[in-house]
């Protein structure tokens, strides 16, 4: 077992008892760490793996120094910021180091050669923070330029709307006789002076989008918006010039203000979803240690080709499908087949990309390039499944496609009606037709969806549920069948010590041995043990167990057969045995525990009228047992990834709307094929990447909570559409009849927008799972 030194500068690892072991902040007696974050980072620092090459992504900054931006995992509090920044700044050649806590990014610049970046990055890694390459641009940008432009547009529109209101209130509360014609005209010109530059600046997002869809011969919500704003301004200028009574500058600017807010919220929700998706994606890219001309170099996984010889250290992912040529170890295959127990592997054993090498380092020759590995096969299968899934049309888009023609038809009919039937001058007819366009402008519609979505995703985030696509909530709301994977989804996917014939002394000794191993059973044993660890010289025997000499006696911790004279044959339970010399061995029994609230959650899901199905790659007996204990009626077991995918396709053909919840590589194609999908955050990257929603924690309740929130928010969105339609039913006849003055327009527009926002906030009031 490798003994990892901690190459820290020593300043923040004080040995005094009353400071945090990680960051040195004083803590209350009895606590080793100031917070959970420090504890996690401290634990991780002892398994910081081999340095990974990041420096290829470094770029020259303005001062001519290299600058690198990386994703950081595990920043929890101010101490983390200080630790990372101080560790980097302590180097003389560092010119800048900055942690961005909101986006979990670290950017630093240094003088000197590019390769120096790797050593610097490794310093941060050895503090216990996991770094990853931000290989794609989308992951890099925190706030995108588009969002910034929207905020600026909102700021300008808000400023202008406020000042216009100041002038407009004067106009509304007074008459021309009272204020004098000259004053009214001054006010009109003043309004024009404020409004026109604002519309030209803040209206750009709408105008641009409207022009681009019109060019392609389609229409969207931005067309009526742009038309209404431009017509309102144009008409108001002409009214101002001919000394007319009503100008609608304030309406035009207020419209923009409200709509921009909706647009920004929408962009923010989409941006967040996109960002979390691409952050997950960047974590996938890794490197592998390859022997080249006798020397070991790290190469990106995607550059591996057949015949290369690769060294895989204990704890590393196997980068490509290959055959072991040196060493023996245990391989965690759970990603491929969902099995909890690792498999023993020796020279000649074939191993697959994506599985984890657990006990000792092995060397293998690559059989297939990484693009042809089993992993890639599954990825390809996923892509096919994704293409097959019908493209979902969002509710708001469906509404928009109906809305635009109806509104424009009303506008045109109003003009024709006043001009031809009522014999009004064309200017008057146009005025009325424009007020129809202004008042029907989809202010409430533009806000209806984004406000609800932002509130819902914020609420879910607080519960540890991360939305990865903007329309995920809408799709989940319509689900009627939920398909669960077993290992890692309904269960925690890691064994837990549940019993055995051991005493406290046995546990202490076993834990002191087990702490040296990455085997899941060893980890479970250590987790259960709270006391001090005795330092031992431990030897690891792959496929068998661990051994150490204590006071001249050989202590063994491992399989039943290896630990010597134990009666009985291999039991099906997960177990470890501890043998002291020739004494009788004692047993530790483990089980892959079902998530603590699983049966409660499943029952609640049934109450919501949802059908649940268990779909597992595990043996039928195990699957049926778990399904029965949770009250799931249907359990389909021993399925391959392809079967899972086609089973979902079958369900969909029967008209079911399916939510797939899974965590393994074998689930990934099924996740892609389902109408909506969720993954626990312990899932492998590909599954997390494919799923629409990722949830954290050891409970299954987020599945229920997400469905509830999705249904509630969908209901609110529909209510908001209803409100918007009701508003139009009242407003349109008024506008057509010519009763809408600027005051009425302003009151109606802000009133309906407020109503929609307030309605959306009801989601928050009834919040919680």
């Amino acid at each position: 077992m490798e003994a990892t030194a901690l190459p820290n500068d020593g300043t923040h690892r004080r040995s005094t008892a009353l400071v945090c072991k990680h960051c040195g902040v004083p803590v209350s007696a009895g606590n080793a760490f100031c917070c959970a974050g420090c504890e996690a980072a401290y634990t991780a620092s002892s398994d910081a793996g081999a340095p990974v090459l990041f420096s290829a992504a470094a770029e020259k900054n303005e001062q001519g120094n290299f600058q690198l931006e990386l994703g950081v995992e595990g920043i929890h509090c101010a101490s983390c910021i200080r630790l990372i920044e101080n560790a980097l700044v302590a180097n003389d050649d560092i010119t800048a180091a900055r942690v961005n806590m909101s986006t979990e990014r670290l950017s630093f610049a240094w003088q000197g050669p590019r390769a120096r970046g790797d050593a610097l990055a490794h310093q941060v890694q050895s503090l216990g923070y996991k770094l990853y390459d931000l290989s794609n641009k989308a992951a890099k940008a925190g706030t995108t330029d588009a969002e910034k432009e929207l905020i600026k547009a909102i700021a300008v529109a808000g400023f202008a709307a406020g000042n216009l209101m100041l002038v407009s209130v004067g106009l509304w509360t007074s008459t021309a006789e009272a204020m004098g014609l000259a004053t009214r005209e001054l006010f009109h010109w003043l309004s024009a002076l404020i409004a026109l530059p604002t519309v030209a600046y803040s209206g750009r997002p709408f105008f641009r989008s409207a022009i681009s869809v019109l060019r392609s011969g389609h229409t969207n919500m931005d067309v009526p918006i742009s038309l209404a704003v431009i017509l309102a301004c144009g008409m108001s200028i002409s009214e101002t010039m001919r000394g007319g009574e009503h100008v609608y500058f304030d309406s035009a600017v207020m419209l923009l203000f409200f709509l921009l807010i909706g647009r920004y919220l929408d962009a923010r929700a989409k941006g967040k979803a996109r960002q979390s998706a691409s952050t997950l994606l960047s974590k996938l890219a890794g490197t592998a240690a390859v022997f080249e001309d006798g020397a070991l170099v790290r190469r990106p996984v995607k550059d591996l080709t057949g015949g290369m010889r690769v060294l895989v250290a204990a704890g590393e992912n196997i980068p490509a499908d290959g055959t072991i040529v040196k060493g023996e170890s245990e391989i965690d295959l759970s990603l491929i087949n969902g099995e909890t127990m690792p498999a023993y592997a020796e020279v000649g054993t074939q191993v697959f990309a994506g599985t984890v090498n657990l006990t000792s380092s092995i060397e293998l020759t690559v059989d297939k390039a990484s693009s042809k590995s089993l992993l890639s096969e599954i990825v390809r299968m996923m892509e096919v499944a994704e293409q097959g899934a019908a493209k979902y049309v969002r509710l708001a888009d469906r509404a928009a496609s109906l809305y635009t023609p109806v509104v424009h038809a009303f506008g045109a009919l109003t003009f024709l009606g006043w001009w031809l039937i009522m014999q009004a001058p064309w200017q008057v007819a146009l005025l009325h037709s424009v007020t129809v366009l202004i008042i029907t402008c989809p202010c409430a519609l533009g806000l209806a969806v984004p406000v609800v979505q932002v509130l819902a995703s914020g609420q879910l985030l607080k519960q540890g549920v991360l939305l990865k696509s903007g329309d995920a909530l809408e799709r989940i709301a319509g689900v009627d069948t939920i398909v669960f994977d077993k290992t890692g989804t309904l269960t925690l996917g890691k064994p837990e010590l549940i019993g055995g014939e051991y005493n406290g002394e046995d546990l202490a000794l076993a834990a002191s041995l087990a702490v040296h191993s990455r085997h899941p059973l060893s980890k479970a044993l250590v987790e259960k043990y709270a006391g001090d660890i005795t330092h031992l010289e431990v030897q690891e025997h792959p496929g068998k167990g661990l051994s150490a000499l204590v006071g001249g006696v050989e202590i063994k911790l491992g399989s039943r057969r290896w630990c010597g004279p134990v009666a009985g044959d291999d039991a099906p339970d997960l177990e470890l045995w501890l043998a002291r010399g020739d004494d009788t061995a004692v047993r530790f029994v483990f089980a892959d525990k079902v998530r603590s609230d699983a049966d409660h959650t499943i029952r609640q899901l049934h109450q919501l009228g949802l059908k649940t199905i268990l779909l597992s790659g595990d043996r039928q007996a195990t699957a049926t047992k778990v399904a029965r204990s949770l009250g799931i009626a249907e359990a389909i077991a021993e399925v391959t990834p392809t079967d899972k995918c086609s089973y979902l396709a079958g369900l969909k053909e029967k008209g079911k709307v399916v939510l797939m919840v899974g965590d393994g590589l074998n689930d990934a194609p099924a996740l892609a094929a389902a109408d909506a999908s969720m993954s626990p955050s312990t899932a492998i990257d590909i599954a997390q990447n494919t799923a629409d929603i990722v949830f954290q924690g050891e409970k299954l309740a987020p599945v229920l909570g997400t469905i509830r929130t999705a249904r509630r928010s969908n209901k609110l969105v529909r209510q908001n559409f209803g409100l918007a339609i009701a508003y139009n039913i009242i407003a349109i006849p008024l506008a057509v009849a010519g009763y809408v003055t600027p005051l009425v327009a302003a009151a109606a527009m802000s009133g309906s927008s407020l109503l929609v926002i307030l309605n959306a906030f009801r989601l928050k009031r009834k919040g919680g799972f």
Partner: protein
Amino acid sequence: MDVLLYLIPIALVLGGAGLAAFLWTMKNNQYDDLDGAANRILLDDE
């Protein structure tokens, strides 16, 4: 009504100054790391 002749420009200038200040903070990326900024005040300058 003469009072409007300087009240309105004053209102516009004050509001405009606020707007300009906001746009300046935007341009300086002051809203990029709100969580970090909230935590950094807890750190002592060393």
